[in-house]
């Protein structure tokens, strides 16, 4: 079962830094949604993901952390310094860091997760295959996972996490390395996963997440600049022009925001793939 996530006055300051990476961040991510954390580079997106995954300490020793987080109704104060896997699974922005390099095939790389969870070998294939299928990487099963292209390796990395059936899946910049076709496939897959998994993804560009996210959080210099539904975000989107890829995007979003009570909005929602 998926579960809700919240943070309460979460502040993180890395050792030797004067200003906090996150500053009193209080957000509430509803269960079974896809939440996009948007912001330019260095604005705290990855720090927030690290806090939710319980890996703040693993990545930055000596960080000072205040506030609390809550996962599935369980409060964690202080913020946990232990990896919350498999409740929470984390896909890094660089998949090559995630692939162990200790297994010879992509299939075995995914099976490595199940080994670690103590799931007997004879049950591996039935559990792994559906994920390889839906991620479009079944044909890569026998390939060496360290010799895949960026997009392929990323999908293998996602499979290694999904196969653990986490309640929460965190992804750091999952769309940036993918071409349009694979972005679309990943978006459909994430939407399917909502039934069982709450998904939080960090991205620096709006266009990558507009058709995927239900819930949007914008971070600016470690503070929450916006939090709300994708629908509410449409009305505020042009305020964050560093997140828009071009002037044409900005012009399009400006027009879009004036159309939310027009008859055409229904068709726009369809193009956006918004069902919620």
């Amino acid at each position, binding site marked *: 079962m998926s579960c809700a996530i919240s943070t309460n006055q979460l502040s993180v300051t890395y050792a030797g830094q004067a200003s906090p990476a996150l500053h009193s961040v209080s957000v509430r991510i509803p269960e079974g949604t896809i939440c996009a954390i948007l912001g330019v580079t260095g604005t705290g997106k990855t720090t927030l993901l690290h806090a939710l995954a319980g890996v703040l300490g693993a990545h930055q020793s000596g960080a000072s952390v205040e506030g609390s987080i809550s996962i599935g109704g369980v409060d964690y104060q202080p913020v946990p310094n232990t990896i919350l896997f498999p409740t929470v699974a984390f896909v890094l922005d660089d998949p090559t860091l995630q692939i162990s390099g200790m297994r010879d095939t992509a299939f075995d790389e995914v099976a490595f997760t199940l080994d670690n969870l103590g799931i007997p070998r004879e049950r591996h294939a039935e559990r792994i295959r559906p994920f390889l299928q839906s991620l479009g990487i079944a044909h890569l099963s026998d390939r060496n996972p360290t010799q895949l292209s960026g997009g392929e390796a990323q999908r293998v990395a996602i499979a290694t996490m999904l196969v653990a059936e986490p309640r929460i899946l965190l992804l750091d910049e999952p769309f*940036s*390395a993918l071409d349009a076709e694979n972005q679309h496939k990943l978006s459909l897959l994430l939407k399917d996963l909502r039934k069982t998994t709450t998904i939080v993804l960090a991205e620096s560009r709006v266009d990558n997440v507009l058709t995927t996210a239900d819930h949007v959080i914008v971070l600016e210099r470690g503070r929450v600049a916006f939090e709300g539904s994708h629908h509410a975000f449409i009305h505020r989107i042009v305020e964050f022009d560093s997140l828009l890829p071009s002037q*044409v995007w900005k012009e399009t979003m400006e027009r879009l925001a004036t159309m939310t009570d027009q008859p055409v909005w229904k068709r726009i929602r369809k193009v956006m793939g918004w069902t919620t």
Partner: protein
Amino acid sequence: MDDIGIQADSLTFAYPGAPPAVQDVSFSIRRGECLLIVGHNGAGKSTLLKLLNGILRPSSGRLFINGEAVQNRSVSELARLMAVTFQNPGDQLFASTVRKEVAFGPENLRHPNADELVRNALHALHLSHCADEHPYDLPLPTRKLVTIASALAMGTPHLAFDEPTAGLSHPEKLLVAESLAAVRNDQTLLIVSHDLQTFLPLASSVLVLHRGRVLFSGPPQSFIDRNHHMRKAGVRLPLLSRLRRLLSLPLIASADPTRK
């Protein structure tokens, strides 16, 4: 007729024992224009490019470059007229450094300003910092940029690319789009790609291939207006274009200056 850069006249080609991979394909592009070729895998796009650079010879039909029939010219003669890059960088990288790789074409063609062409191409694709590295020490996307720089450095009047942005990240795609946009007015561009978001704004015309034949040929706007062509060609209209259509905004903004 004088300014026709490339003209294909009923080009047909069949691999041995197979139905024609390219059948009766005709198009023409003027100097300084950009033709975007789209179609499903196996629609004949890559075969068409190989016919253009002489690796394959048409079984019938004619090909004109700068008004001259060239279907019987040698591969090296054709290379002076058109640089072609293929989808997989592994098929064409062989030199021991990025700089040598990029310099191979213009030096072979004995370009008087080869050094300048190489320097500009490396600069355009942000490869100057790794010019002395071995291409195979670089990540795959960077190797892809090396092949594109190699084509640009040839200084040929015509350029053809097969899926130049496949496997690239967004910033890398922008780099490729900007590099090609910069040469567009001087050189004829022929781009095979599924990446409409990147290349539709560059294209002056679109050719849709389906099972080796031309399904559609015309300006980008009429291509977009005909959804069924896009579906048959296996391409999706980018989100931005779909939204702009619903919002009654012009579909293709000729210039979409990108933020850094």
